[in-house]
């Protein structure tokens, strides 16, 4: 009884606040889920502009050599495969970096990438979101990429030129590609989706 007498306000308040939070969460969850879904669709369409629809051919699957579960989307236009898009994550300079990577239908060339989440240093590492760095990946082979500090960033090949003053973030982006590209390709070959 002493326990109840001393702490009844805490128990009642916890119950009331819990109900309030449950109500707010119930009311807002559809909107929050819709935002997340819309953001993902926009990101997918931004990468595969010719695709009319996207189908999740692999969903939250654990893949060997990749720590996080993997989801792969197939972009389709009039029944034809336009390419593959998958989420990829890896350690950056200050926090993890989440990318959305697109490759062509034969898994031979990179179509591009978008940064879904990063906490890299403003003005330096966060330039992995800028086109002058991203454009180097567009058309590059979907194979092992290498990072160089100097070179011509206009030449599209497996050599990626680092952002000046942000070698760690540049390397992090390249490493994410090198970790995911061969493993996702092997997974799609294993499933008979590509040759």
């Amino acid at each position, binding site marked *: 009884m002493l326990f109840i007498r*001393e702490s009844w306000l805490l128990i009642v*308040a916890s119950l009331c*606040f819990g109900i309030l*939070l449950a109500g*707010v969460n119930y009311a807002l969850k559809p*909107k929050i889920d819709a935002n997340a879904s819309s953001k993902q669709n926009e990101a997918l369409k931004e990468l595969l502009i010719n695709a009319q629809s996207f189908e999740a051919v692999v969903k939250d699957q654990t893949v060997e050599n990749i720590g996080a579960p993997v989801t792969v989307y197939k972009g389709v236009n009039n029944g034809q495969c336009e390419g593959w898009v998958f989420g990829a994550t890896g350690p950056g300079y200050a926090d993890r970096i989440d990318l959305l990577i697109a490759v062509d239908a034969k898994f031979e060339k990179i179509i591009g990438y978008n940064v879904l989440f990063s906490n890299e240093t403003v003005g330096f590492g966060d330039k992995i979101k800028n086109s002058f760095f991203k454009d180097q990946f567009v058309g590059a082979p979907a194979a092992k990429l290498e990072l160089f500090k100097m070179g011509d960033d206009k030449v599209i090949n497996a050599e990626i030129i680092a952002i000046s003053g942000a070698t760690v973030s540049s390397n992090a982006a390249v490493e994410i590609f090198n970790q995911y590209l061969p493993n996702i390709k092997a997974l799609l070959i294993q499933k008979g989706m590509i040759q």
Partner: protein
Amino acid sequence: MSDINTPTVAKTFLTGIWKENPVLALVLGTCPTLAVTGDVASAITMGLSATFVLVCSNFVISLMRNLLKPHLRILMFTLTIATFVTIADLLLKAYLPEMSTKLGPYIPLIIVNCIIICRAEACASKNGPFISIVDGIGMGLGFTLTLSVLATIREVLSYGTILGKSVMPDGFITLFAFALPVGAFVTLGLMLGLVKIINEKLAK
């Protein structure tokens, strides 16, 4: 602290704006002040979120002030503040998802913002709901205004923009250091010094 023995609406409101401005006079909430003032939009969102939590938690705590036992006081404050911070976080995720992503952990961290718990202890637990709400609005707006001024200075100097719109003439040389933590510390330090000089002149 404020003259809460005889609080009036106007005095309570204005106290938070200048005399006991949470950032410039009480030097509370320094972490979000430094972290989210790189641009004006983030600063306004953080300020208004903190104001929402301040007003709601002050109101609820003032309602339960006569029931609070000394050993449960801080626990009840934290529980109340955490509830309203979670609501603010969910609202931002629902209606301002881009800003929610941009502010990241700093919205949930309002739970441990000293300003909120300070006002719960200094005002809401000793006054009625109306004065507590006015105190929350005054303190919240004082916090929001300070963050906005700091963010305006930093955004103009580092990008030449306010709310993303260019406001400086062509050829303006931006000082990118002001977008970095060093810029936040320097600007806040100068603002604190300026406020001290003004207060000393006003006191004479």
